[in-house]
């Protein structure tokens, strides 16, 4: 299942290592995550659902969905899509007997609701107390999330206190641009990302980007990530911390864990939150069947790790992500059976649709997926036509044979840190979900905390880079760096961004932004 040849990407694989999955040796290469190595070895069931013991595969591949939780070297509930393989690593599936693939408790899925419907644990077997305690213990054995660790942590943990001008959280295009522009103005910056590399979503975008040449359109996403990473290397006042997860912002103090071992207490003068977004899922029968994946998850597997997600795919959603993913799958030699789109017309750019249409991929507009078919993994999908009221039209069902389904219906901002930091938030459908109020430079209602990129509202990389630049420069200016030149650059980028959003694709964004713009809200009040 590993790709050897690819028209765009050259996959560099590390040293061969052996990991043990439920006791069996599995071949892997250094640099691969546990999830991708298991996938390449043909393993499809990664976990069992909490209550019904339904089989679950990976979904997001970026640590956001929890459907890949396993026990790693004795520690339960590890997201194996975020853990890199090491020789001799022992991985076990949890909450199943004897293992997730052939879980005997799987029968619960078909009967549990009959005997023990939702809410039963409040009503049944409550008295006497001894019975309740006994039954609760049994149930916890059936349902649950892994066994507690058998040993205590024995490694060396350490602590570091860092004083700096600017802390940037997230190393995607927005965070990288913020760091570069603040550092160029003279600020001292710490840039943190939970991955062992910078680039965020860009590392899986093998296609040439849209936008203006000045913001690197016409260049492949993967190259943009390299260019920005090189610029960062040049700037000695940026301290990059890889594999560093930020877990909270407490009155301006940023808390993070570096490489699972070191606690960081960061005292910055300003903060830019650029944590990106995660994928949404869709409601349909069997949408949790292994083989139903997020579009970004498939891109990660295929374009970052060079592993084929399957042989024939069905794409749900014809936005740019769905269209581009279709093209990328075909570049990897994978067939795409069809693209389905619930709206009466294609959602993404026409030129992206034309690219795959001329290679013979059918696009069903006005259709949706009704169910995934298969016992332990996807074998086919059933799609159906929708009428004007978005109701399925009986008799229009079509079966599409495929071995995986990609959900490409959009993203939601990774907003948790902002919310926790106390920023005033609003749910704005045009921007993809819960987002913070901000002024024209991206500063939120919490002084000194900025937002940039997809977490400020789902858009795309060009806008993310511009927002990052604006936030980075503005933070530097407010700290006292940059002078007139910085002011000039800031206004230039603000203008470019405005022009960029002036077309029909920007309309939705602009109308969403109005609802969270601190200036507009103040004006409305006055």
């Amino acid at each position, binding site marked *: 299942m590993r790709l050897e040849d690819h028209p765009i990407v050259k996959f560099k694989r590390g040293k061969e290592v052996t990991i043990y999955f439920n006791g069996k040796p599995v071949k892997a290469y250094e640099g691969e995550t546990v999830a991708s190595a298991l996938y390449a070895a043909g393993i499809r069931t990664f976990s069992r659902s909490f209550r019904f013991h339904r089989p679950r595969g990976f979904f997001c591949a970026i640590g956001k969905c929890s459907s890949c939780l396993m026990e790693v070297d004795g520690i339960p509930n590890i997201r194996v899509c975020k853990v890199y393989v090491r020789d001799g690593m022992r991985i076990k599936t949890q909450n199943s007997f004897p293992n997730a693939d052939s879980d005997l408790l799987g029968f619960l899925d078909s009967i549990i609701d009959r005997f023990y419907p939702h809410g039963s644990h409040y009503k049944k077997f409550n008295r006497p107390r001894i019975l309740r305690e006994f039954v609760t213990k049994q149930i916890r054995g059936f349902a649950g999330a892994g066994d507690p660790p058998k040993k205590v942590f024995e490694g060396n943990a350490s602590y570091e206190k860092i004083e700096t001008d600017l802390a940037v959280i997230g190393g995607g295009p927005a965070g990288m641009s913020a760091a570069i522009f603040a550092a160029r103005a003279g600020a001292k910056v710490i840039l943190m990302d939970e991955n062992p590399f910078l680039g965020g979503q860009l590392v899986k975008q093998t296609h040439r980007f*849209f*936008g203006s040449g000045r913001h690197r*359109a016409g260049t492949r996403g993967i190259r943009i990530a390299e260019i920005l990473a090189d610029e960062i290397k040049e700037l000695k006042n940026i301290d990059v911390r890889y594999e560093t997860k930020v877990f909270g912002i407490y009155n301006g103090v940023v808390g993070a864990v570096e490489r699972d071992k070191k606690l960081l207490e960061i005292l910055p003068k300003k903060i830019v939150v650029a944590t990106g977004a995660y994928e949404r899922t869709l409601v349909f029968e069997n949408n949790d069947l292994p083989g139903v994946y997020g579009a970004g998850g498939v891109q990660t597997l295929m374009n970052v790790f060079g592993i084929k997600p399957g042989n024939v795919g069905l794409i749900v959603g014809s936005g740019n992500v769905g269209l581009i993913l279709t093209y990328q799958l075909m570049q990897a*030699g994978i067939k795409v059976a069809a693209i389905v789109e619930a709206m009466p017309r*294609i959602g993404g750019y*026409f030129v992206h649709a034309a690219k795959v249409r001329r290679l013979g991929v059918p696009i069903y507009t006005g259709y949706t997926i009704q169910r995934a078919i298969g016992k332990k993994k996807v074998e086919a999908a059933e799609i159906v036509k929708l009428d004007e009221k978005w109701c399925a039209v009986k008799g229009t069902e079509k079966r599409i044979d495929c071995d995986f389904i990609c959900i490409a219906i959009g993203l939601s901002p990774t907003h948790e840190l902002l919310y926790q930091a106390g920023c005033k938030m609003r749910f704005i459908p045009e921007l993809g979900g819960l987002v913070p109020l901000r002024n024209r430079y991206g500063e939120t209602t919490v002084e000194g905390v900025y937002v940039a990129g997809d977490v400020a509202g789902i858009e795309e990389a060009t806008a993310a880079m511009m927002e990052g630049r604006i936030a980075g420069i503005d933070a530097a200016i407010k700290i006292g760096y940059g002078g007139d030149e910085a002011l000039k650059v800031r206004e230039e980028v603000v203008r470019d961004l405005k022009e960029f959003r002036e077309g029909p694709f920007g309309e939705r964004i602009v109308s969403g932004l109005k609802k969270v713009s601190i200036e507009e809200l103040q004006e409305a009040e006055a």
Partner: protein
Amino acid sequence: MSYLVRGYLEEDELPPKPSKERLEERAVAYIECPQEIPCSPCIESCKYDAIRMENINAPPEMDYEKCNGCMQCIRVCPGLAIFMLRLKDGKGYVTLAHEFLPWPKKGQEVVLLNRKGEEVGKGKVTWVLPPERNDQTSLVRVEIDPDLIFDVRAIRIIEEGE
């Protein structure tokens, strides 16, 4: 906007075509990018002022007289929406961007596909810009029936034994 339902342009939605005389003179860029999208690498790459675009969201418009066939635009267009067209000695030529394995080779016979992915005939590859010379976007010129230059928009490599 019905091309947005289908995913391809119909004859009546095509941009204005260059004249037969113009096509016989030298190769010309033909841009199939009708929608307003925030994109502008084509105009930024053209040194001959042959592409017009009022702002970054406006669709590009060609001035066929100014285009000198330099192919800068087709190298960078992220929409793979630009095709170089040419008529010469009773033959038609289409140059298109190609990003699939196996890479086409000069002299090879290939299957021709139209905008809907239907096979419309066969053609011969007469020139290739190797992918490594253009960050993995190869340019491929095919010699085809002259009546098909406004139809052929992709190629498929013939597999062994086919």
